[in-house]
């Protein structure tokens, strides 16, 4: 039992107690009335939904395709994989701020080049048009998370026996048929697990939005994770906690499904 004591302590003091405190603050019904009255909350809730659905599925589909590319047994592709992991290995602050500078409507390299090369005075409003800014945040999120999921699916692909593919080639199967009848059946479960896990993490993605758009223009790109922190910075801790608790009905089922999938392994 003594072996467990350190983690039990850490868990109790720094996870369980904060969660209890959070519920203690978040259980007053009138905060929710105030929260729902804030139009930014509705925007953030809608954005969070779109953000998760779009970026998770886009990431996973691209990762699925790229994992096929990287599973080709060529030396230069192996080297490319090493490079490809860079966005995952690098910290968020400098890389996302690099995107932010790059996409600035006046001083960013893209619009400056459009002006210098083609004389376009007003290039695309990458971060100042709410919709475009939101798309950019999704792209940054994909940039950051793609390597991890590609690697995960790649590991899954490499676990599939090569004999199956060889036999299929002998039978004259097309690339699509190989994918449809060999790869996908073996990967489907991993793909679903990854999608759920990615959805949970994307719900909590603070950096991509905060560092790229700061929630702007005019709070139009806020998501729940950034809105909660914004409330705290405005000395409204209670609203911050409420904006998170209100998302629990969506998160908890996902978490429960994941826990079943991840911990059920041995019993199955």
């Amino acid at each position, binding site marked *: 039992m003594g072996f467990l004591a350190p983690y039990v302590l850490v868990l109790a003091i720094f996870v369980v107690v904060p969660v209890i405190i959070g519920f203690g603050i978040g259980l007053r019904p009138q905060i929710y009335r105030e929260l729902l009255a804030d139009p930014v909350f509705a925007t953030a809730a809608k954005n969070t939904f779109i953000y998760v659905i779009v970026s998770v599925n886009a990431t996973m589909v691209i990762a699925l395709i790229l994992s096929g590319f990287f599973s080709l047994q060529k030396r230069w592709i192996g080297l490319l994989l090493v490079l490809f992991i860079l966005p995952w290995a690098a910290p968020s602050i400098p890389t996302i701020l690099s995107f932010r500078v790059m996409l600035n*409507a*006046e*001083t960013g390299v893209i619009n400056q080049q459009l002006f210098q090369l083609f004389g376009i005075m007003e290039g695309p409003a990458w971060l*100042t048009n709410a919709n475009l800014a939101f798309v950019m945040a999704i792209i940054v999120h994909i940039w950051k998370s793609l390597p991890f999921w590609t690697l995960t699916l790649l590991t899954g692909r490499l676990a599939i026996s090569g004999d199956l593919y060889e036999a299929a080639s002998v039978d004259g199967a097309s690339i699509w048929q190989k994918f449809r009848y060999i790869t996908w059946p073996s990967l489907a479960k991993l793909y679903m697990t990854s999608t759920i896990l990615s959805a949970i993490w994307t719900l909590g993605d603070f950096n991509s939005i905060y560092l790229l758009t700061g929630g*702007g223009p*005019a709070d139009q790109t806020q998501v729940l994770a950034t809105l909660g922190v*914004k409330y705290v*910075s*405005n*000395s409204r801790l209670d609203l911050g906690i409420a904006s998170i608790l209100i998302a629990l009905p969506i998160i908890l089922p996902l978490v429960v499904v994941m826990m079943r999938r991840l911990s059920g392994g041995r019993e199955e």
Partner: protein
Amino acid sequence: MRNIILGVTAAALLGSTSIASAETLTIWWSKGFYAGEDVAFKNVVERFKKENGVDVDLSLYQASDMNVKSTAAVEAGTVPDIAYGDQLGVKLIGKWAYDDKLEDLSDVIEPIEGEFAPEALSAAKLFDEKSGERSYYAFPLGSQTLATMVWTDLLTDAGVSTDDIPQQWEAYWSFWCDKVQPALRAKGKRIYAVGMPYGIGSSDATNVFMAFADAYNVRLVDENGKPRFDAPDLRESLTKALASYTGLYQRGCTPPSSVNWQDPDNNQYMHSRQTVMTFNYSISIPGKWLDDSTNPNLSKDDQAKALDNYQNKLVTLPPPHDAADQPLKTRATYLPGVIFKDSKNKELAKKFLTFLLKDENLNPYIDATKGRLFPSKKTDIDSAFWQSDKHLKAYHGIYMVGTEPWDYTRNYKLSALNNEGVWAKAAGKILTQNYAPDQAADELIADMKRLVQ
């Protein structure tokens, strides 16, 4: 093994928590922009330590961090002995005074009342609901007000000079949008005439919007601080102010990205000469070039360029006249500091305050901000420093015309409007969601009613 872990944890905890003893004065102070500011303040602290044989635990925080931290500290009752933050006055101090969280500093301030400008004193006299009276719950330090910065060489490129700038509000903006910018564009330059901040959460946006509100005589409260949100003239004047403010963006004479601008951005765009003029509180924009002109990290060439910018190319001008062509009295933000009721060493804190507020200690610190803070003490206001060059002189002149206090000094509840950034929110609706100005004004008034109950 468990003991080892507890030991490691305990060592980590002890190593970084400083436990304040009775003899230690805890000060939370705003981190300055220039290294010289922090040095000047630390000098005052050092001298105080030496003269009194006490220890001082000084923490310097970024202004916005200070808001978060001090809010948490007030809630948890773990306050420092003295706190000063550039934004505390605008955002929090009025409420703290109202809620009886602050120590009455009358015994420190009253004996030296005569040394301060009256506006600075009145901004430090705050209402405490418990006692039902106004008293010195804060100490005056410095202030900031609105000034206009202009690149004169870019004006010359556009074929005009500062003498051509009309004074009346609408004519003034028309000059920038319809004359200066097209002239520069005709020469193939990708320059915007105006740099106007609109970002939610930017204190610059709040500050500049108030000038638009004043230009159209928006009156949110009466003389006694009573809100007049239902007054029929308010909706009309707010609509005009919002239309004028957002009109600059819609006419394309401020950069597209200004809808996102936070506090650094209007400065940055001026520095990189992407805009010809901007409104800014304080003269930190020319101050940057002055600082660069002696910055040892820069090449001699760059230093000379910076000095040329400061002396010859950049000018500080008063804001234009209002819509009725009357001189516009700008709002001045007084930046006070406080001692809390819950502070552990109140007597020592007051002793430090008395020490700090002496001319020989305070004035060098204020002057080290290079105009970022305008002094509250008459000796400093009247000193040769403020006549020593054209930017300082012009800024001093704006104060001498007379300034207006912010509404939240009359009624602290209005500070919620600035905290929430309601002005930038209303402007954002016009700029990103195609609201008409009167529609945005209606929702703005509803917001104000909700926040100021």
